């Protein structure tokens, strides 16, 4: 019986082999099938394209915001109105983004590191008071795209236009060389209709000058020739709009032979830190009373210092010869330089008060900013409801206080004028 079975098992072995082969083939096929299903789950998703498209459009929106803000600033010289105009553009963009990409679950948060701004979606800065003028805006974007599981992406978008007058090239107050850069790249195609030159007459009023020619020298440098309204001018202001983006920037050069102007016509709504010809300490002064030659550290350079041993400094204005209306906010823009430049964060507070003629004082308001590195810091001080104006004959007192830890041996310099062109200032009526 067993012998018979063994004899007949040859055919069964063939079937058994066929079954084994089938099992192997099917298991390989199943594995392959499973792999192909997994590859479907890992299919390409356009995360990179979507994120880059959003970033690219944020740059365009920021450029538009700076363009609108610079035009408003040029018309009104009001930081508040200019910043508001720029912020409106960015708010519109952010809301459109959410509406357009709602199907992807896009969440975008726009912010700045400026803790004081109530609508801190964008930071806009203009400094057109020196020989290097700047129009600058930035915003930080935090982006999540839920549909792609893409979260926590953060990027800074910024735009800047600078105009630099080279004072050594000013020839007989009829020609000078200036440099125009956009995002640190030369702007090569400026035309006559995009530039205005104004001269400071002897009474410091601004008078338009006729621009005779504009010649491109390369690397963003231009020679401009103009006809001043009179021979004895006190300085020059150049205003330019970039050809493609229409962002306006301006810079100013005051001649070295500027004499102390007659008092009575100063603009007391914007005060700068510096000295008059006769003052022994740093004061808050209108530009016309500020004398760049009367400084302790050379041309216009002053640097009140605060440290652990002396965490507070007081700077006062002379008696203000007119009433100044206060409304809403006062903008204080200070250039602060930590020394040594270690990355320590210190809270700096700026407090403004009025000292009345009878010696009594009243607090206007205060604002605090975290300072970790060298640069300009904005302190937007909300004016107390009980104050509507700074009366004639009173003084403005600015108190700058910093919080230092016990073992902190560093100090903070409050720089009055940076690189001969950008100045710390207080705008009382923005």
């Amino acid at each position, binding site marked *: 019986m067993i012998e018979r079975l063994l004899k007949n098992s040859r055919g069964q072995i063939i079937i058994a082999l066929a079954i084994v082969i089938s099992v192997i083939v099917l298991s390989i096929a199943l594995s392959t099938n499973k792999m192909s299903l997994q590859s479907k789950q890992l299919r390409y998703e356009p995360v990179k394209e979507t994120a880059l498209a959003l970033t690219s*459009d944020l740059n365009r929106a920021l450029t538009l915001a700076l363009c609108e803000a610079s035009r408003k600033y040029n018309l009104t010289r009001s930081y508040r109105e200019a910043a508001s105009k720029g912020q409106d553009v960015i708010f519109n963009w952010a809301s459109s983004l959410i509406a357009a*990409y709602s199907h992807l679950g896009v969440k975008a948060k726009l912010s700045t590191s400026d803790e004081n701004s109530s609508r801190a979606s964008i930071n806009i800065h203009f400094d057109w008071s020196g020989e290097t003028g700047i129009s600058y805006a930035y915003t930080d974007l935090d982006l999540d795209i839920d549909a792609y599981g893409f979260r926590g992406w953060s990027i800074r978008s910024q735009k800047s236009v600078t105009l630099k007058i080279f004072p050594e090239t000013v020839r007989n107050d009829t020609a000078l060389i200036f440099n125009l850069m956009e995002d640190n790249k030369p702007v090569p195609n400026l035309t006559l209709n995009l530039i205005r030159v104004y001269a400071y007459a002897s009474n410091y009023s601004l008078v338009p000058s006729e621009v005779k020619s504009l010649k491109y020298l390369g690397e963003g440098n231009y020679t401009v020739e103009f006809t001043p309204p009179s021979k004895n001018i006190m300085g020059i202001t150049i205003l330019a709009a970039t050809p493609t983006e229409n962002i306006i920037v301006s810079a100013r050069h005051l001649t070295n032979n500027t004499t102390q102007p007659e008092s009575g016509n100063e603009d007391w709504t914007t005060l700068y830190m510096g000295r008059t010809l006769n003052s022994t300490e740093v004061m808050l002064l209108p530009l016309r009373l500020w004398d760049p030659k009367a400084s302790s550290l050379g041309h216009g350079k002053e640097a009140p210092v605060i440290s652990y041993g002396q965490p507070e400094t007081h700077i006062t204005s002379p008696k203000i010869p007119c009433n100044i209306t206060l409304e809403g906010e006062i903008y204080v823009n200070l250039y602060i330089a930590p020394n040594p430049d270690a990355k320590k964060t210190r809270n700096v507070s700026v407090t403004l008060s009025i000292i009345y003629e009878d010696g009594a004082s009243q607090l206007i308001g205060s604002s605090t900013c975290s300072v970790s590195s060298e640069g300009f810091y904005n302190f937007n001080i909300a004016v107390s409801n009980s104050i509507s104006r700074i009366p004639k004959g009173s003084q403005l007192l600015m108190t700058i206080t910093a919080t230092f830890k016990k073992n902190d041996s560093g100090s903070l310099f409050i720089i009055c004028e940076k690189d001969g062109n950008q100045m710390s200032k207080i705008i009382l009526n923005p």
Partner: protein
Amino acid sequence: MLKVHSNKGQVRVFEAVAAATIIFMSFSAAILLIRPQHSWAIREVEDLDRLGYNILHNLIENGAIESILRESSLNASRIKLKTLLEGIIPIMTYYNLTIFVRDEGGAVELKYYVSVSNARPEVFLNSPEVSSATAIYTSRSGRIYYIIIMLVKGGG
């Protein structure tokens, strides 16, 4: 004696046929499992997605969209856009590019602005491999546009 041998032979033949059938069936099943379903469609959608994003990127970054949107009439915008797309998009590819604009009223709402296409709407409804790519565009005039391009491989 002869009958026993012929029975044995028949059994062997039957066993061989059974073994062959098992192997044939397993191979058939394996082929069905190995052949990926619609992989061609997946690959084509991916390629078309990339193509769509590239087209939008090019239209936006080289300023073509800005100049098209500046056209005074919608018809001129449509003609310019169509001419441009016909030059960029590969042959035998159906496209539909639609631009929406943010309503400048108070509410955030996207309104239809302009659309160009080289195919009937059913092509995009019935095809298994429709690709779409989107972009948001802020123009220099301050208007915000939402652009969507749909692509389908034709001729298949």
